[in-house]
C-alpha cells in the first residue's frame, strides 16, 4: 500500500478501496483506516475494476469519477480533485392553506472559493429545480443540460405524495444536481450557486424574470438557412433520433411485461388459495397441500416486488433519457442556427458590393460563437456518451439483478417445500 503520493488516482492497478487516499486529507492517508472510509467499501471492493475486466483507466477521469458515483461515495474518495459534493434527500410534506407540496433537502459540501461557506443545507421544491434548469438552459445554451423528472403528473392516476413517487423523484433530482455538479462549466454557473446556497430563492426568481428577457435576446437568431451541417453534428442528430426511438420501444416492452406480470400475479393470487381449500378436506395430504399454497403465496409476493421495482426504478430512468435527448436535439438545433447566421452574414459580407467597408466585427463575433458552440458541444457530447454508457449499464444490470432476486426467492420457497412433501412418506415407510 502506497503511503507516498497524496492525491494518487485510485487507478494504479487494482487497489482495494481502503488504500486510496482522500484528496483532501493526503497526510492521513497512510494512517487512516477510519470506519467511515471502510464502511462503504464492503459493498464495493470488487467494483474498482471496470466491468469488462480492465483496471480503472488512468487517463479518463470521467470514468473513475462516474465509477465512484455509482458507489455513491459522494463525499469520500475520488480520483479527481472533486471539490463540490451535492445530495438531495429528506423529502417533507408541507401543507398550507393554498397548496400542499414536497420539499427536499439539498446538502452541499465544497472547498470552492465561489462559495462563501464550505457547507450548505437548504430546502427546495420541484419548482425551484425547474427554475434552475431553465436558467441553465438560458445562460449556457451551448451546453447539454441534464433533464429533470417529468413535471406534470396526472392527478388521480398517480399519487404525488406516495412514498414511491416521492422517492423516485428524489432520486432523479439527486442525479440531476450531481450531473450539474460534475460538469466543468455548469457547476460554476451563478444560478447553480444561488440554488445551492441562497436561503430564499423567491427573490432571486423575481430578479431572474427580468434578466430572463435580457439574456434571451443574446441568442435569438432569425430563421437563417443552414448550408451544410458538419458531419459530426449530423451524426449526433441521427444517433439521437434512432436512440430515442429505441428507448421508446424499450419503454413499451417494459410496460407490457409489467402488465403481463400483473395479470399473472392476479391468477396466482387465486391459484394458491385453491390448494388451501383442498387441504381442508384431506387428511394425509393436508400438510403438503397447505405447503404448496404457502409457496405460491411467497412467489406472488416476490413477483409483486419485482413489478413494483421495475415501475419505480426502471421506467423513470428511461423516460428521463428521452427528455434528455429532447433537450439535446434542441441544443443541436440552436447550434445549427448559430452556424446558419454566421454563414449568411459571412456571405453578405463576401458578396457585398461596397468593397470599401471593413469586415464587420459582427461576423467575427458570429464566427467565434460558432466555434465556441461547437467546442462546448463536442466536449459535452463525449461526456454525455460516457455517462449514458454508465447509466445504461447500471440500469440494465439492475433489471437483471431484480429478476435474479425474484427467481432466487421463488427457488428458496420451493426448495424448502420438498422436505415437507417427502416427510410423511419416510414416516409411512417406517410404520409399514
Amino acid at each position, binding site marked *: 500500500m502506497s503511503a507516498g503520493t497524496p492525491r494518487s488516482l485510485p487507478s494504479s492497478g487494482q487497489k482495494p478501496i481502503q488504500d486510496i487516499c482522500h484528496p483532501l486529507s493526503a497526510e492521513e492517508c497512510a494512517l487512516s483506516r477510519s470506519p467511515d472510509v471502510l464502511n462503504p467499501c464492503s459493498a464495493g471492493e470488487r467494483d474498482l475494476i471496470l466491468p469488462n475486466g480492465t483496471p480503472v483507466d488512468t487517463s479518463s477521469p470521467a470514468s473513475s469519477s462516474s465509477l465512484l458515483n455509482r458507489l455513491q461515495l459522494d463525499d469520500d474518495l475520488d480520483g479527481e480533485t472533486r471539490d463540490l459534493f451535492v445530495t438531495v434527500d429528506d423529502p417533507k410534506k408541507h401543507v398550507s392553506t393554498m397548496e400542499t407540496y414536497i420539499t427536499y433537502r439539498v446538502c452541499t459540501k465544497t472547498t470552492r472559493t465561489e462559495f462563501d461557506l464550505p457547507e450548505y443545507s437548504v430546502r427546495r421544491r420541484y419548482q425551484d429545480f425547474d427554475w434552475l434548469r431553465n436558467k441553465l438552459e438560458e445562460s449556457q445554451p451551448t451546453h447539454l443540460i441534464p433533464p429533470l423528472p417529468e413535471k406534470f403528473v396526472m392527478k388521480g392516476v398517480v399519487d404525488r405524495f406516495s412514498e414511491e413517487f416521492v422517492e423516485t423523484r428524489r432520486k432523479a433530482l439527486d442525479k440531476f444536481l450531481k450531473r450539474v455538479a460534475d460538469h466543468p462549466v455548469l457547476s460554476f454557473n451563478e444560478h447553480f450557486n444561488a440554488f445551492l446556497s441562497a436561503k430564499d430563492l423567491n427573490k432571486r426568481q423575481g430578479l431572474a424574470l427580468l434578466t430572463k428577457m435580457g439574456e434571451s435576446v443574446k441568442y435569438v437568431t432569425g430563421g437563417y438557412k443552414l448550408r451544410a451541417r458538419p458531419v459530426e453534428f449530423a451524426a449526433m442528430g441521427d444517433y439521437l433520433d434512432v*436512440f430515442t426511438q429505441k428507448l421508446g420501444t424499450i419503454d413499451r416492452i417494459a410496460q407490457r411485461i409489467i402488465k*403481463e406480470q400483473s395479470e399473472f400475479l392476479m391468477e396466482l393470487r387465486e391459484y394458491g388459495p*385453491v390448494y388451501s381449500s383442498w387441504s381442508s378436506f384431506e387428511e394425509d395430504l393436508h400438510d*403438503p397441500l397447505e405447503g404448496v399454497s404457502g409457496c405460491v403465496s411467497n412467489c406472488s409476493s416476490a413477483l409483486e416486488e419485482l413489478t413494483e421495482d421495475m415501475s419505480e426504478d426502471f421506467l423513470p430512468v428511461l423516460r428521463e433519457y428521452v427528455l434528455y435527448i429532447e433537450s439535446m436535439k434542441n441544443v443541436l438545433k440552436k447550434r445549427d442556427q448559430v452556424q446558419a447566421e454566421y454563414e449568411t452574414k459571412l456571405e453578405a459580407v463576401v458578396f457585398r458590393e461596397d468593397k470599401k467597408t471593413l469586415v464587420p466585427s459582427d461576423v467575427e463575433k458570429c464566427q467565434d460563437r460558432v466555434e465556441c458552440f461547437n467546442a462546448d458541444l463536442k466536449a459535452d457530447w463525449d461526456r454525455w456518451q460516457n455517462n449514458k454508457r454508465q447509466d*445504461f449499464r447500471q440500469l440494465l444490470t439492475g433489471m437483471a439483478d431484480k429478476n*435474479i432476486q425474484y*427467481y432466487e426467492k421463488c*427457488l428458496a420457497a*420451493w426448495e424448502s*417445500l420438498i422436505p415437507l412433501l417427502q416427510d410423511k412418506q419416510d414416516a409411512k415407510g417406517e410404520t409399514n
Partner: protein
Amino acid sequence: VERTSLLKMMEISVAEAEKRTGKNAVNMQETYTVYLIETRPVDAASEGTNPVPDSLWRRYSEFELLRNYLLVTYPFSVVPPLPEKRAEFVWHKLSADNMDPDFVERRRVGLENFLLRVASHPDLSSDKIFYSFLTEENGWKETVFETGFQAKADSRLKALNATFRVKNPDKRFAEMKHYGDELQSVISQLLRVRARAADRLYGVYKVHGNYGRVFSEWSAIEKEMGDGLQSAGHHMDAYAASVDDILEEEEHYADQLKEYLFYADALRAVCRKHELTQYELEMAAQDLTSKKQQREELATGTIRTFSLKGMTSKLFGQETPEQREAKLKMLETQIEEGEELVKERNAECEEFVKSAWVDIERFKEQKDHDLREALISYAIMQISMCKKGIQVWNNAKECFSKM
C-alpha cells in the same frame, strides 16, 4: 393372501400412435387414431433375450368399450378412468383439436397409464375380457358383446341417473360420495386457474423476446456498448423460448390432476351403486312389510291402512270367504318370496359394502401416494424453472456489465 396382478407377469405399454382413415358406421370417410399396445412376459426381458413383443392396434372407442364393460361387471371397484375424450382446460397455445400431435401424445401416455392401473388392480387384472383386449386383435368386440353386458350397462345407467332417496345409507359411503364431490369441484377449479396462469406466464416470457430484437437494433448505433447489448439480446431470446418446455412439463402435472378428477367420478359411481343396492333392499323390505300388513288386515278383518281394495270392497261389498281365502294364500306366497328377496338383497348389500369398502380403502392409499408424488414433481418443476431463470438473467447481467 396377495393376489398376483397381471402386471407382475406381463409388461404392458402403449408404444405408438398412428393415423388411419376408414369408413365408419354410416359409410363415411373418417380419420382416427389407433394406438399400439405391446405386451411381453416379464421373464423374457430378465433372461436377456429381448424377444419382439406381441402387439395389436386399438382405437379410443375400444378402450371406452373395455371400461364400460369393467364398470358394469365390477360395480364395487373404483375403475381407473380413461384420459379425457376432448381436450378440456386448455390454455391458448394448446390445441383443442383431437388430431393435434401433442394431444395424441398425451393421450397415448394416458391410455398406457389406464392399462397399467387396471393390470395392477387386485380384481380387475384377472378379468378375461381385459386379457383378450391386450392379446386378441380380432373378434374382441364380439366377445365383449357376447357377455351381454350391454343390457346390464343400460339398466345400470338408468338406475344411476334416477333420483331416489335412501333411508339408511352407510355413513361411510355418504361421506365418500361427499368427498368425491368436493374433490371433483376443487380439482376442476385448480385446473381452470392453472390454465389461465399458464397463459399469462407464456405472455410474460414471450414479450421478453422483444428485448432481443430492440437490443440488436440498438447495438447497431453503438460502438463500445454494441457487443454487450447484442449478446444480452440473445439471452433474452433464449429466455423467451424457454417457456415452451416449461409449460409442456406443466401439462404433465395437469394430466396427473385430471386423472384424479375423473377418478373422483369413478368413486362417486361406486357410492351411488351402494345407494342403489341399499335402495333396492329398502324397497324390498318395504314391500314385504306392506304385504305382511295386508295379510294381517285380511286375517283379522280390520282395515288399518287405506287401500284401494279396501275402499272398493266397502263400496261394492265385501268379499266372500272363498275369495278371502284365495287372497290370503296368494299373500302368503308373496310374503315367502318377499322374505327370500329381502334376504337376497340384504346379502347383496352386505357383500357390496364389504368389497367396495376394501377397494375404496385401496383407492384412498393410492390417491394419497400418487397426489403427493405429483406435488413433489410439481415442486421440482418449479425449482428447475427458477434455476433456468437465474442462469439466463445472470448471463444477461454479465453481458450488460460488459457494455
